[in-house]
């Protein structure tokens, strides 16, 4: 088959795996510099992973298989996403499998595994985190689904490479009302799904506000490394998805190695810029009160619904 396609997948997964901790490092460093601190350096998340992996694995008393298997499952779903989402090429051997609904469902599967692990500990923190996370996820998953549907309607398919290739061919789709509404909705949903401000603060351990950290409080050593790595992978893939959907320029659509390499460079740049922009924005944002978060999410769900309706109406009259 096409070796370039396989190369593209290997490059993409390699870049995501190697780059996910670096992206987090970059975001922390950006934030530190903007706040006037020196920062720990871009490589610090990798050092953390290495340190944690070498520690002894610990099973808290009273936890079971759900607790034990959630971190590997989280990373595994993120890895499958890294294979499926077209970040650098739409002409890969998996292009037929990269269905949008599957991608959203795999994201949800990772969330669900971690929530079950939180409940499995039987502590107040674990249950609290799981409860909050599922309440947020129950609103976020539909929003992501709806937002990307709005984009899939002009393309006539829920296949991600087809959507991305279509948008690369006709950039006008992105500046249509449906496209703009979908961008706004998806951006909010990505913030919530990856546990960033203003929905969740990844740097807090305050019981009043923490969501993700409360669920994973009992993890230590290699398991903690996996949980953190999984979260970093998800953030990278989601930002990459955002970049691919709304700035698809440069993504390779043919079987040319040069184009793939160029696309890789561009994808890294796009994700880095998005990450830095997010980090810079976070400096100025405060975390929302937990019970104001649903209002934000409901707003973004509404935007996504409007986007789908707009694309039905506009697509129905112009697109046929």
């Amino acid at each position, binding site marked *: 088959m096409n070796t370039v396609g396989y190369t593209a997948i290997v490059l993409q997964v390699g870049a995501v795996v190697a780059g996910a901790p670096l992206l987090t490092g970059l975001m922390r460093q950006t934030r530190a510099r903007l706040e006037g601190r020196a920062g720990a350096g871009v490589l610090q998340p990798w050092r953390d992973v290495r340190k944690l992996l070498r520690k002894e*694995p610990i099973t808290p008393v009273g936890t079971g298989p759900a607790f034990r298997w959630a971190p590997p499952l989280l990373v595994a779903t993120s890895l499958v996403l890294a294979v499926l989402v077209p970040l650098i090429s739409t002409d890969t051997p998996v292009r037929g499998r990269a269905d949008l609904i*599957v991608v959203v469902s795999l994201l949800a599967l990772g969330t669900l595994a971690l929530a079950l692990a*939180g*409940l499995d500990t039987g502590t107040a923190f674990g249950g609290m985190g*799981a409860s909050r996370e599922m309440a947020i996820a*129950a609103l976020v998953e539909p929003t992501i689904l709806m937002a990307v549907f709005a984009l899939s309607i002009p393309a006539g*398919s829920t*296949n991600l490479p087809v959507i991305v290739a279509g948008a690369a061919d006709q950039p006008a789709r992105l500046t249509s009302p449906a496209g703009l509404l979908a961008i706004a909705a998806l951006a909010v949903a990505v913030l919530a799904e990856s546990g960033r401000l203003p929905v969740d603060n990844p740097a807090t351990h305050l019981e009043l506000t923490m969501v993700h950290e409360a669920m994973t409080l009992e993890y230590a050593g290699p398991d903690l490394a996996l949980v953190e790595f999984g979260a970093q992978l998800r953030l990278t893939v989601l930002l990459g998805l955002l970049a691919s959907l709304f700035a698809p320029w440069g993504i390779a659509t043919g079987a040319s190695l040069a184009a793939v390499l160029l696309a890789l460079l561009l994808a890294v740049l796009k994700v880095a810029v998005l990450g830095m922009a997010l980090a810079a924005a976070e400096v100025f944002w405060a975390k929302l009160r937990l*019970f104001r978060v649903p209002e934000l999410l409901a707003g973004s769900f509404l935007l996504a619904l409007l986007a789908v309706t707009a694309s039905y109406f506009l697509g129905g009259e112009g697109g046929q």
Partner: protein
Amino acid sequence: MSLIPAALATATGLGVAGAAAGLVLPQRVRGAVVGVLTAGVGVAGGASGVAALGGSRWSAEVPGLLPLAGTHFAVDALSGLFMAVAGAVVAAVAVYGVGYVAGHGAHGLGSRGAQAVLPLFALSLLLVPAAASVSTFLLLWELMALTSLLLVLAEHRARPAVREAAVWYAVMTHLGLVLLLAGFMVYAAQAGGETFAALRSGSGAMSPAVRGLVFVLTAVAFSSKAGLVPLHAWLPRAHPEAPSAVSALMSAAMVNLGVYGLVRVGFDLLGGGPAWWWLLAMAMGGLSAVYGILQAAMASDLKRLLAYSTSENMGLVVLGVGAAGLFDHAGNKALAGLALAAALLHVVNHSAFKALLFCAAGSVLRATGERNLDLLGGLRARMPLTTGLFALGALGAVALPPGNGFISEWLLLQSMIHGLAVPGVTTAIVLPVAVAVIALSSGLAAAVFVKALGVGFFARPRAEGAAAARESPLLMLAGMGLLAALCAALALVPGLLGDGLDRAVEAVGYPGTRPVSGGGLQVRLDEVSAVLSPLWVVATLTVALGAVTATVRWAGRRRQRRTRARLWDCGGGAPTPRMAYTATSFAEPLQRVFDDVLAPEQDVDVTPVRESAYLVERVKFRNRVPDRIEHRLYRPVLDFLAAAGQSARRLAGGSVHAYLGYGFFGLVTLLVVLVVGW
């Protein structure tokens, strides 16, 4: 002689034999014999369904069986689908039931009456889709309603709530029967015959108003059987209070027949209709989907939660059925076929996982005596197999890969998204909302089943019942194992259904689009293509999981064994089970989010000590999420009826003379009316 009549005759014979055995046999062997015979009913009925799915058809008339009308039977692929589903569920649940009854003694499901009725209920589930005339259909429909009612009542000695649930169920199912009877009477009178063939050929000549009336009457009756909002009130009462094997049969086989009736009458007999029919169906379906899952998210009774989830899933199915009607009305038969196929596939998948979930809930109830999730927990260590089976069913119910519910919701979403091919303002408004409903309900379903599994089965036991739980007996596990195998097969190789799904769709006159074939699903229409391969997803996930664990092993420099450590306790001593999150607290954020819809009732009672208002002696907190639709819709009617009954009591003063006077007065009035009237 083809397979279908032989299998149906076998099923009938076994059902009647089972009923006789239940009546006659002593308690020691009753459960086992009736269970085997009921399983036989399921296998035989399922075999005839599979034969019909394989393409054979059968119809027959038995003139002597019923006076006046005679009985008519016909089996096509659509009937076959529902018979195959019911057969599989009945067979597996019967195996489970033998184990369930064994430890229960002579009360509840093991009693003489319940054991005699169970095979008849199973038989009626299989025969209703085979009926081919109004009288045959209604007779079997009523047999199904009555037998299920007696089974719901089985444990009435143990809990008073059973009786209330049974009254609700009896009233609602018979109101449904009245509507059905009225609708079919109008239909048969207009069509000039009561066999389905006569109805089919007569529907073309009927006026739109009569057709609309027939559709509304029958659709409302069928939606009540399917447990759709606002006629769902019986479902969250009857399903939890019935013995769990019966809940499984009701929730996984009986409610399906509401969908069957809707499809049979709406598409096959009436031959489709105007858009407003299907918008009505979609509205009820969409409302049920969201409201059902919201109530499930609030429920802390495990079986009530599952019952509301049934309401949700039937809502999704009817949403698909309604969309099919809408597409058909717009002239896009291929898309209509796809939507209908998605709805039928969801019926199959829902039956598989819901039967499994109800059986697992029954095992929990049997082992702990407890349905309240707040008092369960810690079952993972005590009932590992049941926990695993429940987890498998829950995976199907949350509609995430690699569960079986995901497959059909994927197909449903595909058919909705590509509704763009149907022009018009109605579809442009309705379909986005429908997609939003499906998306929202699947998002909430994730929270619901995380709650059920995580709070009910994981962590530590919160009460003595859960702490003393033991694994279920082998036969119960075997029954659940059969259902679990079915779930796994449907999830991984949906192509097992083969062309059956297509034939079922073709039976009501739509072209099959072959959405399910081989190892996966594919949608191929003019402007659309989409492919889903569940096996590939599972294989990739497994490879990724293996890679991750191997890397972690390799990266830890020394080979280290896992050490055990205390949970983080903030330095305050080991956390007690009372500190763990309960189902109620788990649902609290969602309750806040949907506060306006759910209107929860909260009571806080603070009792200060006598000496100071600032020192609190006792705080009493009560939180209740009433079924708001039920509250608003049923309560006024019930209050009115009760008030009317109360005021009518004044007429009954206890004096025999007055009663004789009423009789005399009534007779005279009647005679006067007759004389004047004629």
